[in-house]
């Protein structure tokens, strides 16, 4: 991989995107033995408002902890897609929720779209795991962390009773992203 890989998870406050970023970074840092930094930016609201979580993954020391040129962007809302796609690099990965982002950001991106929140709600059974569906998809599309490492990182964060739910969410996100890309 190249020296520095930048991933941004964006959407609305309360969607669990900061946690999705944290898990991705834990997968890289704890399970895959790479360097990783996770940072976030959010408004004063507890729910709503544009929110982003950034993860930098590298083989060597990471100095600047925020994104410079984004390699992969997830946008779960139109507001986030509008606000946070300006520095996505040419040829970068753009993952959007096809129900919620109707105006697809213009640019030469590898755009992948599927109904992320609906997948969580109707196929996994709980809307609350939409962030894990999205995480599974980002793991598949970026290849920056191993699937195994990411799954371990997810399960390390979840209480026993919700293991299966999250496993399913992660797997479905992973599969749907690959299918949607093809």
């Amino acid at each position, binding site marked *: 991989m190249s020296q520095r890989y930048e991933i941004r998870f964006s959407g609305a406050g309360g969607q669990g995107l900061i946690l999705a970023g*944290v898990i991705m970074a834990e997968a890289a*840092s*704890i399970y895959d033995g790479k360097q990783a930094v996770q940072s*976030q930016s959010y408004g004063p609201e507890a729910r709503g408002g544009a929110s982003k979580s950034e993860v930098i993954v590298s083989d060597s020391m990471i100095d600047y902890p925020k994104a410079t040129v984004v390699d992969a962007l997830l946008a779960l809302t139109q507001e986030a897609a509008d606000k946070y796609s300006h520095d996505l690099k040419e040829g970068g990965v753009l993952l959007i929720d096809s129900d919620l982002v109707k105006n697809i950001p213009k640019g030469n991106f590898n755009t992948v779209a599927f109904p992320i929140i609906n997948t969580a709600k109707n196929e996994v059974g709980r809307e609350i795991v939409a962030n894990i569906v999205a995480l599974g998809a980002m793991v598949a599309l970026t290849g920056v962390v191993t699937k195994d490492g990411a799954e371990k990182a997810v399960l390390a964060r979840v209480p026993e009773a919700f293991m299966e739910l999250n496993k399913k969410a992660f797997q479905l996100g992973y599969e749907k992203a690959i299918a949607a890309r093809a």
Partner: protein
Amino acid sequence: MAKKVAFLQGNEAAAQGALYAGCTFFGGYPITPSTEVAEVMSVELPKIGGKFIQMEDEIGAMASIIGASLTGAKVLTATSGPGLSLKQELIGYACIAETPCVIVNVMRGGPSTGMPTGPSQSDVMSAKWGTHGDHPAICLTPASVQELFEETVRAFNLAEKYRTPVMIMPDEIVAHMRERIVFPEPGELEVINRTAPSVSPAEYKPYDTSFGDVPPLAAFGTDYRFHVTGLNKGQDGFPTTKAAWVQDEEERQVRKVEGNVDDIVQFEEYELADAEVAIVAFGSTSRSARFAVNEARKQGIKAGLFRIKTFWPFPEKQIAALAGKVKAFITPEMNLGMCTGEVKRCAEGKAPVHGIFRVDGEPINPGQILEKIKEVK
């Protein structure tokens, strides 16, 4: 055995560092973006028989840690700009009463309520001049999660060693970002405890300078009794207005820090040996600067970084020496020129100082610094 590794937020690392240093009391009034320090302490302190108290406000929180410190405990509070303003009166009290304590202040936008979730570096002057009167000031500005852990341990060491408040000021980015941390084993980092009195309770004086500039501090709740006040005090702790004594006392209190700068001041030099442009930066901004230095070097520009780890006392002689060697300084900071002013003071006109200031709640990015390097090289 392999060392314990975790992926932690800066604030969590500060709390863990405090526990490593032996902190057993936290008094606070939670405020964004420092709340996680209080959260971790509220969970961990009861497990080790320590005490966590959420006070009625920031002033009460500061008062509680001074009181707890006087019982012999290592004490911590955590706050952000608006809370720091409220604590200032009692920070002065801790200075004159010579009570060891550690204050984590996570820098967010100001003044007043400002931008609660936005990063800033605009409290560094409050760390020195926020409370009135001449007083010692120690302020540490770490730049990573690992360093926030280690510097919190050092903050406790300096507080106990010099009987004075110590501030540790991560900006919001350092406090909220997550990185891998390797926990030091017990005993791996130095932990300093305050000197206990060697005399009997009857002979004890809390400010007995025959023991040196930092007199031993007894613990309330033992057989030792003494008086504590915010007034200028004599050796016995009772108020005095004796002119010659007060002059000596004031000078001694400041000398505890200013006379030990080599013990207190820490910094990091990166690519400075042949540098023509020196960037002076601290906290998360120093990480942008390091990125910019690497980019500049790739383009054949001799840039280097002086990273401030100890903001107060300011690394005066190091900056002064650098001023005689470089063509220009660049001082990026998330405020309107606080560090820049100090660098100018130390440089004494020997090299121009170009500030990059940002107060819009966004970090200074490496591109901005690189542009300035090219402009002034």
